C-alpha cells in the first residue's frame, strides 16, 4: 500500500497498464513530455517513449477519431480529453462511431479497449466551460460504458478495468478531487469491475445514491442526518452505464426511500433514469417520492457557484423531507 492522491493513482494505473500490455498507448493535448495539464500522464513518455505517450494536435474530434482507428486495429488507446467540457467536438466520433463500431459491422470490427479519460465537474471556480458533468449525454448512447471514481483507490481499479474492458469506456475523473482526495492504494495491479455499485454504508431509513465527487457531499449530509437519528444507506453507483440496478433495488426495497444526488442539471440528468427504474421495480416498497438533488437547470455559474451546486445542506434537507413525508 502507498498513500496516493487521485492523480497519482491514475498515473500509477496507466503506468501498470502500459507495462503489462504493449498495446496500451496514451495520448491527448499536452499529454506527452509535459504529462498533461493536470499531470495525470507524468513521466509516461519518459518511460515508454514517444510512440506510446504523446501530444496530439489540438483537436478533440481528431483525438477521438484517431483513438477509434487505433482501437479498431486492435490496440488499446487511452485518450485524454483535457476537460469534459471540451469533449463535444468529439461527440460525433464517440456517439456515432465509438459506440456503434461493433454493432454496425456485425462485430467484424470493434473498438473494445478504447478509453476516453476526461476530468469533469465543478468546485474549482471554473464557470460553465470548466465544470460540466456531461455523463447523461453519453448515458443515452448504447454501446458505451461509463465509469466515475470517487477516490484514488477506486480510480485505479476502475481505470484498469476500463482499459481491460472489451467495450469502449468513458472514464470521468472528478477534477476537484485530483489532489484533494488521498488514500491508501495497493501498488500492484487490481481491477474494480464495471457495472457494479458499492454499498459504502448500510442504513435502514433512506438510501442515498451518488457518484464521483458527490459522494463526499453525501457523506456530510448523512452525518447531519445521523445526528437527527436518521439512518442512511449510502451507495456509490461507480458505473453510470451499465448501472447496477439490482444493488439499488435491493437497498430501496429495504429502506423504502431514495435520494439521488448529481452535479449535472436536474432535467435530463441520469437521476431521472434511476428514479424511473426504481419506481417501477420498487413501487410497493416506496414510502416517499424519490428525490433528486442536482444542479439547477442552467449552465454552471461562476460567481454564484455555491448557490447552484447540489451541496450537503440541500442533500440533508432532501433526506429529512423523504423520511418525514
Amino acid at each position, binding site marked *: 500500500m502507498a498513500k496516493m492522491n487521485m492523480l497519482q493513482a491514475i498515473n500509477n494505473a496507466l503506468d501498470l497498464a502500459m507495462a503489462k500490455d504493449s498495446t496500451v498507448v496514451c495520448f491527448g493535448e499536452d499529454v506527452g513530455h509535459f504529462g498533461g495539464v493536470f499531470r495525470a500522464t507524468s513521466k509516461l513518455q519518459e518511460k515508454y517513449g514517444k510512440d506510446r505517450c504523446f501530444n496530439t494536435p489540438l*483537436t478533440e474530434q481528431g483525438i477521438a477519431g484517431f483513438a477509434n482507428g487505433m482501437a479498431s486495429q486492435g490496440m488499446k488507446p487511452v485518450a485524454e480529453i483535457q476537460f469534459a467540457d471540451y469533449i463535444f467536438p468529439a461527440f460525433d466520433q464517440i456517439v456515432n462511431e465509438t459506440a456503434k463500431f461493433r454493432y454496425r459491422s456485425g462485430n467484424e470490427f470493434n473498438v473494445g479497449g478504447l478509453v476516453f479519460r476526461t476530468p469533469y465537474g465543478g468546485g474549482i471556480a471554473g464557470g460553465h466551460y470548466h465544470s460540466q458533468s456531461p455523463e447523461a449525454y453519453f448515458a443515452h448512447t448504447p454501446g458505451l460504458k461509463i465509469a466515475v471514481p470517487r477516490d484514488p483507490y477506486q480510480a485505479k481499479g476502475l481505470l484498469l478495468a476500463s482499459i481491460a474492458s472489451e467495450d469502449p469506456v468513458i472514464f470521468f475523473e472528478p477534477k476537484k478531487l485530483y489532489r484533494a482526495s488521498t488514500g491508501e492504494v495497493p501498488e500492484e495491479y487490481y481491477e474494480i469491475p464495471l457495472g457494479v455499485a458499492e454499498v459504502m454504508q448500510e442504513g435502514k431509513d433512506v438510501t442515498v445514491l451518488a457518484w464521483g465527487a458527490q459522494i463526499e457531499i453525501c457523506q456530510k449530509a448523512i452525518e447531519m442526518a445521523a445526528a437527527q437519528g436518521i439512518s442512511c444507506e449510502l451507495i456509490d453507483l461507480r458505473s453510470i452505464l451499465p448501472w447496477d440496478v439490482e444493488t439499488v433495488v435491493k437497498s430501496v426495497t429495504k429502506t423504502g426511500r431514495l435520494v439521488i444526488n448529481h452535479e449535472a442539471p436536474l432535467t435530463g440528468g441520469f437521476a431521472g433514469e434511476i428514479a424511473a427504474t426504481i419506481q417501477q421495480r420498487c413501487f410497493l416498497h416506496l414510502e416517499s417520492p424519490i428525490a433528486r438533488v442536482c444542479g439547477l437547470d442552467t449552465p454552471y455559474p461562476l460567481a*454564484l457557484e455555491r448557490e447552484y451546486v447540489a451541496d450537503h445542506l440541500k442533500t440533508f*434537507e432532501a433526506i429529512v423531507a423523504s423520511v418525514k413525508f
Partner: protein
Amino acid sequence: MTNPNNATISTVHTAEFTSGHALQIPTLRILQDDGTIYPGAVAPELDKETALKMYHSMSFIRVLDERMLAAQRQGRISFYMQCLGEEAATVGSAAALDDKDMIMAQYREQGALRYRGFSLEQFMNQLFSNEKDLGKGRQMPVHYGSKDIYYMTISSPLGTQIPQAAGYAYAQKLRGLANVTICYFGEGAASEGDFHAGLNMAAVHKAPVLFFCRNNGYAISTPANEQFKGDGIACRAVGYGMKAIRVDGADILAVYQATKMAREYALETNEPVLLESIAYRLGAHSSSDDPSGYRSKEEEEQWRKNDPISRFRLWLLAKGWLDDEADKAQIEALRAEILDALKVAEKVAKPGIEHLISDVYAEPIPELERQLAELKAHIRKYPDAYPITSGRMS
C-alpha cells in the same frame, strides 16, 4: 469543357509529387528593433493621435497584465491570462479596423479590446465577476465582451468563433454594411475542425472576414512543431483559395499595414483573408501554468529581446511624438490608477441571485422559476452558508 472538379488541370506525364513545403510565405517586417524602418520599407500612414492610441493601448495592457497576474497570485482573482509578447499583434490589427467591425477573439486579445475602448473599470468588473460585469459574473476572468464596442463575448471552447465569424461577416454583407469581421485564434486552435469549417465556408460564401492567427509558438505546453507539419498557418489559405499574409507580430507597423490592406481587400471583394502573426507567448499560458516544465529560460530570454512595445516606443520617440520622461511618469500614474480600480471592483457586490436563472432563455421558463423559489427558501433556512446572496434577497 466544363470543370466539375473545380480544379485547374495542367497535365504532366511523369509521376511527381508536389512538396508539402512548396509554398513558403514571407514575413512582413517594417520596424526594426532600434525603432528605425527597414531599408526599402515604407511606414504605413499613421497620424500622431492614432499612433499614440496604439502605444497607450499596448502599455496599458502591459501594466494591467503585470498587476492582475500579481492579483491572481495574491488570491484576489481566480485566474488570469497575459497578452505578453502579443500586444502589437492585437493592438496593431484592431487599429487598422473601423470601430464597427466585429471582433471575435480567442482570449488573449485584450490589446484589441483596449484599443476599442473597453474601460479600466470594465476590465476590473469582469475580472472580479461582480454585479457590474457586462457578462453578469458568469465567466472566468478574461472572458470579456461588449456589444457597444463590437467585441463578441469570449467563449472558452477553442475554435468555435471561427465558423461563427464567417456567418457574422456574411450577415454583415447581406445587410449591406461596410464592415468586416476579424477573427483571432491561436495556432493551436487552428487544429480544431472548426478552423477548416470556418475558412472553407467563408471562402465559398464570400464572407468579408479577416482570420487572424496568432502563431505564438505554443498551445499550453505543445510547441508548434508538434501541432502541425505545414509551413506555419498562413499557407493553408491557399488550400481554401484565399489570400494570405504573414507578419512579424512584434512589429506593430507591419501588423497595422497588413491588416489595413486585408480589410480593404475583404470589403471590396467580400473575400476572406488569412493573416498570420509570428510572435512568442512570452508569459505562461495562464496563471495555472508553469512553462519551466516544457521550455527553457534561454529560449524565453531570446524572445524577450524582441519586445513589441519598446520597438514602437523608440519609433515614437524618434518622431518626437512621445516624451521619454512624461511617458515614464504616465506609466507610473497608470500603475496607481489600476491598483485603485482593482480595489474598487473587488468590493463591488456579486450579481444578485435572480441572475442565477436569467439569460438561460429570453424569459425564465416556469421550471426555472420553481427552482429559484425552492433555492431561495433553502437559503433563508441556511443564510450563513450562502453569504453572497442571503442578505440581499427580496
